[in-house]
């Protein structure tokens, strides 16, 4: 909601907004970033909303990373801004990204060629993160560079932050006798939502699923994480095919429970 300018002291302590200002802010700034997967874009009313934290959850090999790679490629190919991709499972595949970009027309309907692909791929920045402390470090650096207007990538700012997957960083520390893990999880949630709000980022995280008994599965990270994402999407893939099903578990704007089938292009 806040402007992208340096926040002054007044801004920090309770500058209030009226409804009309909020509406103006939404129409001007809270754009939807396409994921490039038609079914998901339809389901989400156009894509990932800036300022929001979207979570994609699903069993192993259901297509969560594909949603992340597609969103990163689409946003870059349409020159919407820079993508920051935090990878915890060495699954960011540059060759896959190149293939997706190659098949994506830009805003004017032209396909990217040669050197253009290079420019597009240079606007996706990837960093490996293997523990929660490294995540805090990266998010802290990101916040500093976003607040510092001088550091921007030739005029284009980060518009999408992807963490694939947040649950593998949190799983080793939550549960058990010690409450520190849980408080670190909530700190991560607060930082992500603050970044999304103050810098108009769309944040996309993936979560894995755990057994809920009786052979059923549920999203991991428990009840207190459940309240964190604005949008929760669960996806599953049919055995040995690339047809996936996506269901909205939670959405702050749209009715939840709607389901759509989509195909991950090979």
């Amino acid at each position, binding site marked *: 909601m806040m402007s992208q300018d340096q926040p002054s002291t007044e801004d920090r302590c309770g500058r209030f907004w009226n409804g009309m200002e909020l509406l103006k802010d939404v129409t001007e700034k809270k754009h939807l970033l396409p994921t490039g997967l038609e079914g998901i874009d339809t389901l989400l009313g156009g894509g990932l909303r800036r300022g929001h934290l979207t979570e994609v959850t699903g*069993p*192993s*090999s259901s297509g969560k*990373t*594909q949603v992340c*790679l597609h969103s*990163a490629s689409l946003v*870059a190919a349409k020159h919407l801004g*820079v993508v*920051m*991709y935090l990878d*915890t*499972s*060495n*699954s*960011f*595949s*540059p*060759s*896959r*990204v*190149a293939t997706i970009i190659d098949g994506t027309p830009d805003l004017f309907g032209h396909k990217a060629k040669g050197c253009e692909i*290079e420019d597009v*791929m*240079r*606007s*996706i*920045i*990837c*960093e*490996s993160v*293997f*523990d929660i402390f490294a995540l805090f470090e*990266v998010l802290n*650096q*990101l916040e500093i*560079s*976003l607040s510092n207007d001088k*550091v921007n*990538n*030739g005029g284009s700012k*980060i518009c999408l932050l992807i963490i694939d*997957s947040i*649950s*593998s*960083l949190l*799983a*080793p*520390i939550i*549960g*058990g006798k010690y409450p520190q893990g849980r408080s670190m999880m909530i700190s991560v949630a607060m930082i992500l939502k603050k970044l999304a709000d103050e810098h108009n980022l769309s944040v996309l995280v993936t979560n*894995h699923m*755990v*057994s809920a008994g009786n*052979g059923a*599965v549920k999203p*991991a990270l428990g009840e207190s994480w459940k309240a964190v994402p604005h949008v929760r999407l669960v996806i599953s893939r049919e055995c*040995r095919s*690339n047809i996936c099903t996506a269901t909205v578990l939670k959405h702050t704007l749209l009715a939840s429970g709607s389901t759509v089938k989509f195909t991950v292009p*090979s």
Partner: protein
Amino acid sequence: MSFVYGAQNAWDMLSDEQSQKHITTGSGDLNHILGGGIHCKEVTEIGGVPGVGKTQLGIQLAINVQIPVEYGGLGGKAVYIDTEGSFMVERVYQIAEGCISDILEHFPHSHDKSSSGQKQLQPEHFLADIYYFRICSYTEQIAAINYLEKFLGEHKDVRIVIIDSVTFHFRQDFDDLALRTRVLSGLSLKLMKIAKAYNLAVVLLNQVTTKFTEGSFQLALALGDSWSHSCTNRLILYWNGNDRYAHLDKSPSLPVASAPYAVTGKGVRDAVSPNHKRVRVA
């Protein structure tokens, strides 16, 4: 233009990836569904029922990673962490001999080369470049994985770490399943970090278990739903009649696919000739 120190853009990563060599499995069909072989900087999980060839593939990879650069290999060394005691060194010697005879078949002119090249192509040389750790409890396993980072820092020529199997001790002695999940997810992040930092392949062999889903029991890899997220790629080995097949079940960059393979006297090879088939003992 860097927002975060050390972060790389996708274009630079693409050129890095394209210059990478992959570790051949010994079977062309298997290499094909894996996009050329086992990839460095990734964690690959290989699962299957007992006797389908997990350990054979593990040993094969420990040998193949050592194929010298001039013969199209990586010329690296291997770390083999054995938790089950199934690493049979006589078999390793056989597979090394098989690998060498295949190299000489593909490069018939290598006989003309200097004696130093020939000296490399000895089974003894291949055996000497496998660092073998025998692990007898989960405590030792956790300690070994924690120690790996230091070990690899001192042995930078290691290009593959094989854990055969990651499961064994964690299936026997653990009562607190929530604790097991936490410990395992911590280990998997460490292995991911090692793979990336030292530019090597991590191969985890896993056992199967039965899982009750949708009203029936089905085979699934052990260690649960949470663990299933802990690898970059997953390859499942299975029997199809009397033939061995591999199914690529998970990969961020490749489509799901299956391919037949065979385990011969020389090691893992393509399933072409019918006399390579072993009659399955039921």
